[in-house]
């Protein structure tokens, strides 16, 4: 397995916003990491890229295994050799992701110079090649430009080019389209999906857009308030969600032929880290909650479902 996250807990200061998150990913696969804001998706991304120390956090339990090696036990230098080289990272907001005082070309070049040991000339040639593959017109002119001279969609392509420049096996994309126009969103998702198929990359796609998940992902991990609710192969999950939270998320996707007003949303909000409820963290908002849900933390059954009163498996 390319990436294996097992019972991962993350601690920042005195709070533990993430605990008991597990999922796995093979090469050539896209894993959708979904959940509302505050469910711990971005923290998971930082844990997988070894960037938790930047926000003062650390892995306090479980393991993040990349190609069989646990990242949590690695020295900073070893992690750095991995980041940009084997694990590429695409951030949420391309508007602020690039260094505003450095030319685009240099920002992409540095990855292949650092990790692949290319000369300045070879690195630039590679950058031009990458930009062209990502359908960036006039790649040579873009290399000489500064970030403020490019559109949001262009900038996100540059960020993707930086993630690809080290020939990685895994890309972690943290809501890569949230800050972009709807038309551009589809293009960026298409680019990422194509890369996975063509290059056999693994992609962790963090999103709160269940529509995108249904279109491009192979597997889904649903997070709620820092815990895994359900992790499964995508078709089964959409056809017959077992966790009430998954079902509620799917219910939030507008569909053809839906009666006006049928789109309900989920009442209430994700609890904050300091106010996680006891028992199952979803029980205050759950339509299927049992009395036991308020006290008993549901264990992951079959490694993929954490619910005391799941929806029925479809018969047949």
């Amino acid at each position, binding site marked *: 397995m390319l990436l294996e996250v097992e019972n991962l807990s993350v601690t920042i200061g005195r709070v533990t916003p993430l605990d008991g998150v597990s999922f796995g990913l093979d090469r050539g696969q896209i894993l959708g990491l979904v959940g509302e804001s505050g469910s711990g998706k971005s923290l998971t991304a930082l844990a997988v*890229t070894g*960037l938790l120390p*930047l926000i003062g956090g650390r892995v306090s339990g479980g393991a993040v295994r990349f190609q069989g090696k646990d990242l949590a036990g690695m020295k900073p230098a070893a992690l*750095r*050799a*991995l*980041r*940009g*080289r084997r694990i*590429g*990272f695409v*951030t949420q*907001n391309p508007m*602020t*992701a*690039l*260094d*505003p*005082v*450095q030319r685009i070309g240099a920002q992409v070049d*540095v*990855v292949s110079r*650092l*990790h692949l040991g290319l000369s300045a000339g070879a690195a630039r040639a590679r950058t031009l090649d990458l930009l062209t593959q990502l359908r960036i017109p006039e790649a040579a002119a873009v290399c000489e430009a*500064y970030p*403020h*001279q490019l559109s949001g969609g262009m900038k996100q392509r540059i*960020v993707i080019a*930086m993630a690809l420049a*080290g020939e990685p096996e895994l890309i972690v994309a943290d809501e890569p389209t949230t800050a972009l126009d709807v038309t551009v969103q589809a293009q960026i998702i298409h680019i990422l999906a194509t890369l996975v198929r063509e290059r056999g990359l693994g992609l962790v796609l963090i999103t709160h857009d269940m529509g995108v998940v249904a279109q491009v992902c192979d597997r889904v991990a649903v997070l709620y308030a820092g815990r895994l609710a359900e992790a499964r192969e995508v078709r089964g999950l959409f056809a017959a969600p077992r966790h009430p939270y998954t079902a509620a998320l799917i219910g939030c996707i507008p569909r053809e032929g839906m009666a006006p007003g049928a789109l309900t949303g989920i009442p209430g909000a994700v609890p904050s880290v300091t106010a996680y409820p006891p028992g199952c963290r979803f029980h205050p908002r759950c339509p299927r909650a049992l009395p036991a849900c308020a006290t008993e933390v549901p264990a992951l059954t079959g490694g993929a479902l954490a619910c005391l009163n799941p929806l029925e498996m479809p018969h047949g």
Partner: protein
Amino acid sequence: MLNYLARRLLALIPVFLAVSLVIFLILHLIPGDPVDNLLKVGASASQRAEIEARYGLDRPLPVQYAIWLGNLVQGDLGTAIIGRRPVIDIIAQALPHSLMLGGLALLFSSVVGVALGVVAALHRDRWPDQAIMGGVLVGSTMPGFWLGLLLILVFAVWLGWFPVSGARGWASLVLPVLTIGLGGTALVTRVTRVAMIEASQRDFVMLLHAKGLSPLRIQLFHVLRHALIPVVTILALRIGWILGGAVTVEVVFARPGLGTTLIKALNQHDYPVVQACLLMLAMAVMLGTLLGDILQALMDPRVRAAQAGAAR
């Protein structure tokens, strides 16, 4: 960029006129008369009128201003009333000393201040940071003349490494430069530290880490570059201040310079000299500000883009 430079220089002209008018008026509106210093006790009214006529002091103020300004743009700063020699000579004698002292002090506080600020920021909230910020606090609260006296006592009197006073040779520059430079260092250190910490929390820094760059490289080549933008602005603003603010230090070390010239001329009500000194200081502030803006534009492509946009 050249276009921008030309526009900024043109914009300095009205500022210059306003400053020159204020300098001219302040001196004519404050009480005291230089003619008193020139007349013997018991001189007659006709003798007074004669001297006033010689320096044009009997003409109406607007006329005096027009004459002064007219001479000024031709490089003629007038004749010192007390010193009885061309003001331009007095300035030419004092300015190099001030520029040397101010320039070296500025260089010292930039280099040492930025270096200390970087070290403090890299060790944020640990002992090197606390030691540096503590030292900087002591340095910034110590008045220049007292620090100067202290340095003289230790390095000139006790140790005998440098001369006590005067302006002969490089050795005599060390203590005055340190005295002025240490005060500026405190400011630069603090601004650098805060700007580094602020810049390292920006989004793009996260992505630099994600690219696998080493933290030191990120701090020195990316974060520091951003942090230097406000630092350069502050340093440029200090240019004028350092030229004029060196006066106490010039007195303590008995050095010639613009500051001592100004104070002496003020005591003697020597209008042309005072005006020339104030004008030099005002120009230093104006040029410093301009220099700061230019450096900022050179360091930040977004500022250049905003200027190009404003020019259209």
